[in-house]
Structure formats: C-alpha cells, structure tokens
C-alpha cells in the first residue's frame, strides 16, 4: 500500500529485488529458530503467516498492477475499495463471533468512514484522485477501522453483559435505552479509539510510521514525508472515530428492543 504512495511522491524508485526479499527471510529463520529453542511452539504459525502474507501480497500486487494502471478508469479503484470494505466486514464477523449478523453494520461503519475520509482527501485535494492514491489510502483507513470495529463491538457486548444489572436498574428508573447504555458504550468506544490516539501522540518518538518510513526510504525529503504522514494519520484517526461511532450506535440499538428492554447477551471467550 505504502509503495504506491512512494511512487507518486518519491524522487527515485526503490527495488530491493528478489534476492533482497529472500535475504529478509533470514529474520524469519531467526524467529523460527528462537521458537524451536524456547519451545514456544510458534514455528509452524510463523512460517504459515510469512508464506501466506507473501502469497496474498503477490496476488494483491498483481491485481493492483492492473487497477492502478493509469490507462484504466479510476472506477476500478473504487470497486477495489468496495471489495476491501466487504472483506473487512466479513473479517469483523469472524473476529467477533459472539455478535450475530454484524456484517451489514460493519460494512456500513467501515464504508461510511472510508467515504468520509476519502471524501475529505479528494474534495480538499490533499492527494490527487488517482487509482494510485485511492487504493492505498483506503487500505490504510479500512485496515485501521476494521481493527477498531472489532474492539468496539466486542467491548460493547462485554461491557453491557457485565453491567447488565446496572443497565436494567437504569431502565427500571424509566431511562430510555440510549441513556441507560450510554456510560458503558462510551467506555467501550474509548477503549477502541484510545490506542489510535496514543499512537498518534507518540508518533515519531518511538517508531517512525509506515508511510513516512517508506517515503524516506524512497528518497523523499523527510519534511515532505512528515506532511504526508501527518495527513494520513489524521485521516486514519478520523476514520477510526467515525467507524466506532457508527458501530457504537448501530450495535447498541440492536442490543435493546424498541420498548427499551435489553436482549439476552451471550459472551464467548476472547
């Protein structure tokens, strides 16, 4: 994803080549060796993850090559974004199994945040609207939103299940479900958004963020790289907040009946 941005902004191309890529596998070999030595029983998972990631990226890279070809209409890029939103929604369901039928809500939440964030990017000409910018930027936003969606959804269900007596005490006082659930949903949303806020606060102090690292590696002036990174970071934060807000409202509504009763919740092990 970052690579496309690099190509747009970089002064020169960077190609680590297949040999370079193979050399980077030495690091995986070290991790596998450590796993075996320490009997962590992670070596198969590590090898599988590394192989799967490579296969996925090669397929995606080939498809992206077609989609971001300047000769192709930008509509293909938007179709790609739609596909990413759909995959994210299905992935959310897989990671939050205790919440049935969350796919439409996750689709709506992730889609809404992508729409708002990309709308800001392109309406205000922060980046030019080309396939090379649409796809990677959407990928970063949807990826972060998806993670926040899973955390928000699981926390909302867990909070409301744990605090059911308090929620019902509030309902019994005549509070509507929106008020009765608010303190607990607020806490769940805070939990989902806080990591992104913390990451934004410490950015650059501990680790350089991905897009910026890629741009600097490709030879872009660090100040220019910072500007791009900052814009991306704000948009990611915005999309995470938008998604969790949509999920918070939509999911909580589904956990109560129209006559202000709380539905039975079943928690599963994390």
């Amino acid at each position, binding site marked *: 994803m970052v690579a496309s941005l690099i190509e747009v902004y970089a002064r020169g191309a960077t190609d680590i080549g297949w040999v370079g890529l193979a050399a980077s596998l030495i690091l995986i070999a070290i991790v596998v060796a450590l796993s075996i030595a320490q009997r962590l029983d992670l070596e198969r998972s590590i090898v599988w993850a590394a192989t799967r990631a490579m296969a996925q990226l090669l397929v995606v890279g080939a498809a992206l090559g077609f989609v971001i070809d300047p000769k192709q209409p930008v509509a293909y890029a938007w179709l790609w974004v739609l596909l990413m939103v759909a995959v994210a929604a299905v992935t959310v369901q897989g990671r939050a199994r205790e919440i049935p039928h969350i796919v439409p809500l996750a689709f709506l939440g992730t889609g809404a945040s992508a729409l708002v964030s990309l709308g800001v990017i392109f309406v205000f000409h922060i980046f030019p609207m080309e396939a090379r910018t649409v796809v990677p930027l959407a990928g970063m936003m949807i990826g972060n939103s998806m993670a926040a969606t899973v955390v928000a959804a699981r926390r909302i269900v867990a909070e409301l299940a744990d605090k059911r*007596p*308090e929620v*019902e*005490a*509030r*309902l*019994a*006082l*005549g*509070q*509507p479900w929106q008020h009765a659930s608010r*303190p607990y949903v607020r806490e769940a949303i805070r939990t989902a958004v806080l990591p992104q806020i913390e990451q934004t606060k410490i950015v650059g102090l501990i680790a350089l963020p991905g897009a910026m690292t890629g741009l600097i590696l490709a030879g872009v002036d660090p100040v220019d790289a910072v500007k791009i990174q900052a814009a991306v970071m704000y948009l990611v934060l915005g999309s995470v907040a938008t998604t969790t807000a949509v999920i918070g409202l939509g999911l909580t509504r589904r956990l109560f009946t129209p*006559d*202000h*009763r709380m539905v039975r919740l079943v928690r599963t092990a994390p």
Partner: protein
Amino acid sequence: MTAAFDLDHVSVVAGVTTILDDVTTTIESGVITVLVGPSGAGKTTLLRLLNRLEVPTSGTIRFRGDDVATLDPLRLRRRVGMVFQRPTLFAGTVRDNLQVADPTCDEARYCTVLERAGLSSSFLDRDGGELSGGEAQRACLARSLLADPEVLLMDEPTSSLDDVNTKLLEANTCDVVRAGVTVVWVTHDITQAERIADRTLRLEGGRVVD
C-alpha cells in the same frame, strides 16, 4: 380493594423451557403481596413482567385496567419502581445516584426519600462503593422512591443482607406501604413472607398454586 395488576392467562416460554405457565391472578393495591416459591419457580420473571423488563409470550397484563403492552414503557417504569436482588448503585455518591433517577429534584427532596428509606441526609455525599450492603440497598430503595411510584417491585432485596439489615429494610418497606405504595416482594424465605405479607402468592413450576 382495587387491583393494581390483573394477569390473564400469562405464559412465558424461553426456547423449550416454560418459565410461567398460564398464570391468572390479581395483585391488589395498597398492600404487600409476597411471591414465594423455590428457585426457578418463575417469581422474578413474573415480577419483571409487571414493569415490562420482560414481556409475556402469551396472555395479558393490565395495570390499573390498562394493558401494559399499550402503555409507554418508560412512563410505566416510573409508576412501577423496582429494587433488585443485589444493590445496584451506579458509580459515584448517593447524590449522583439520586440525580440519575431525577436530576431536577432539589436537596430537600433527596433528603426526604433518603429518610423514607431509613437513611439520614449525611449519606448524600457518601460514595456508593463505601456503603454496607444494607445501606446500599436502602439507597437503591430511596432512588426508586424518587419518582413517587405507585407500585414498588422488590426482587429478593434482602438475599445478600444480614438479619439486622433485613429487618430494617422490611420496616422501611412497610412504612412505604403505609404511605400508599403497593409492594410486590419476591422471596423464597417463608418466614419472611409470614412477617411482611398482606397476601401471599405461591409459585411452583411456573404456576400459581395458591
């Protein structure tokens, strides 16, 4: 004596389990009706039907002659207050808890409901987490009384209290009844039922048996 609630062939079925089975009974106004019976008899479910925290699978429940299904549930719950088995104080002070129930009331009103529940006004600024079980349950009673309910539903409110606090809460509740509030009290303790009940309804296997 007029009826506060009329239950007409009320059943509650969850999956393949029948929790209440064709219950037809009346709950009178201005008295303490005690629902007794073993665990799983359907006492709590019956109680929760009365303020629509649950709804019946079939049958009709009338409050003062009106089908509760046609009443605004939020208004109904302010007319029919509830105290739960475990004290459920929200985070913060007793005042914070009373403000959740009604943020518009003045200090004097808060002191009045605390007094009706057997607590002095000095409890207003006490943190809910620092109260004993008995004090916390009486604070919950005060919180429920803030809406001036016509009926108070008490779901085994003394199950986690010692003898002294149990008797105190019973006495506070009897005072509330003398002030004109109808009380429906759930317990599995027969001696408690004998102490406080004006009328006893015995449930077994989801049916009223006497």
